[in-house]
């Protein structure tokens, strides 16, 4: 029982990180129909900012907002430079563009920073643990769960109460009509990228705080997982992305913890098999987007 609870905490921590990443992918996809595979490189950028801040002796308290600022800014810049010129192209063109952006950034990291994994200095407190009712919980896990909850509440408030948040929902449903209302396409799309960059930054800090290192390809695996999570939840649906992220986190952690040792080698195929089963039962994902048919841009 104790092991189960322990693993549940782990699942929430990992699932939360996937959820934030999947949400970042979904925000952009719902607005402009782009699956941004360079999302992972936004994570890597935030990771490197943490690393350099550590080297420069900047306190972690300041390093975190700097890292978030960097990934947010990088996301907006990415849209401006790479995705705006292909905005009205087919989904395939935009997808390939995002692969190109990802690869260019990876090569830049490898050549300008290092091919190898670099250590990131983290505050001592993060590697500690606290005991709650007999459960020993790592501080980094707890921070991950709390950060995820805060981000989800923040995003929900923004999208339901703020004028620009409502405009983003309107644009996600029917971009052309949103423009007729006077909602500027450039503003909404830049806003979507800024949010996705912020979410990638938070996810990066949580990811790095479990590993204490950063490498040029760091973003690839988590974003691939987040992509699976977004599809599992229903591509383009924000609630779906969160649900898919948590479900994928739970599947991975529980399989790693409770699968018999003889089957551990097959953990990933079994996990993805479960994903396929869910999609066979719900082909549009757990919580599909309301308006998959609506025209983009």
């Amino acid at each position: 029982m104790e092991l189960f609870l322990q693993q549940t905490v782990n699942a929430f921590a990992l699932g939360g990180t996937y959820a934030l990443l999947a949400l970042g992918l979904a925000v952009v996809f719902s607005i402009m129909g782009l699956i941004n595979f360079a999302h992972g490189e936004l994570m890597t950028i935030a990771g490197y900012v943490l690393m350099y801040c550590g080297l420069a002796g900047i306190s972690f308290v300041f390093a975190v907002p700097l890292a978030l600022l960097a990934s947010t800014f990088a996301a907006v810049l990415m849209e401006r430079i790479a995705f705006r010129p292909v905005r009205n192209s087919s989904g395939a063109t935009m997808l390939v563009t995002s692969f190109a952006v990802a690869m260019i950034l990876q090569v830049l990291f490898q050549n300008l920073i290092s091919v190898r994994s670099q250590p990131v200095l983290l505050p001592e407190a993060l590697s500690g643990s606290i005991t709650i009712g007999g459960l020993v919980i790592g501080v980094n896990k707890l921070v991950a769960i709390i950060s995820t909850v805060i981000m989800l509440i923040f995003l929900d408030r923004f999208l339901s109460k703020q004028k620009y948040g409502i405009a983003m929902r309107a644009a996600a449903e029917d971009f052309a009509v949103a423009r007729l209302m006077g909602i500027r396409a450039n503003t909404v799309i830049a806003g979507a990228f800024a949010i996705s960059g912020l979410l990638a930054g938070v996810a990066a800090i949580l990811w790095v705080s479990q590993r204490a290192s950063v490498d040029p390809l760091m973003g690839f695996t988590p974003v691939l997982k987040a992509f699976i999570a977004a599809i599992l939840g229903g591509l383009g649906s924000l609630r779906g992305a969160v649900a898919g992220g948590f479900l994928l986190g739970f599947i991975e952690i529980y399989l790693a913890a409770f699968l018999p040792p003889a089957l551990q080698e097959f953990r990933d195929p079994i996990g993805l098999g479960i994903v396929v089963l869910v999609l066979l039962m719900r082909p549009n994902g757990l919580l599909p987007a309301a308006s998959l048919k609506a025209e983009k841009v």
Partner: protein
Amino acid sequence: MVQPLIQVRSLDVRYGAVQAVDGINFEVEQGEIVALLGANGAGKSSTLNAIAGLVPTFGGEVHFDGQNITNLRPEMLPGLGMTLSPEGRRVFGTLSVAENLQMGAFGMKDAQEISAAWDRVYTLFPILAERRDQFAGTLSGGQQQMLAVGRALMSNPKMLLLDEPSLGLAPKIIEQIFELITTLNEQGVTILVVEQNVSMALEVANRAYVLANGQIATSGDAKELAASNNLQNAYLGGA
């Protein structure tokens, strides 16, 4: 002489090799209701969409209120005083009624003007006030059409472009929609309406243009058009 509020000169719209609108000229004077009629595929919606900047023009010019608005981005129009209520209503189904209306007033800054717009729309459509917290997707077709028009009115436009407002609605609701067009016109809104319901449109309009194959087949005073057989010729492709 007073300039027309909107003036369309040699407008050309093409989708690849297909010529949807072929060099049409027309204008709408301040305070008029003008109907754009024609069979399916005659180019009516393409004309409205080109005016609103939703589809690019291939040639020609559109002037509104003394400004050249040809190929202007659609998000600029509400600020100039023109809104389009699109074909098929296209309300934001996952947003509440009130959020839909709030989006209609997106570009407005003046708090007093905004609150006047809310009053106006809720007075015109009490049902929208009643259902303000409901998702727009759950409204009936007629209510969605009212919401679409209400949303377009929130920016307090001088000119309203209505694309097939009666499409798919029950006869009783259609009557209400055309009454509404008259009411709005009396409130000073200039209206350009695209319609398939020819008899109703000619009843409320001052003038009409009839499109066939992307060209203006005939035009004139609405009452005279209703009485003449030019209209039938245009529809049957005889003109």
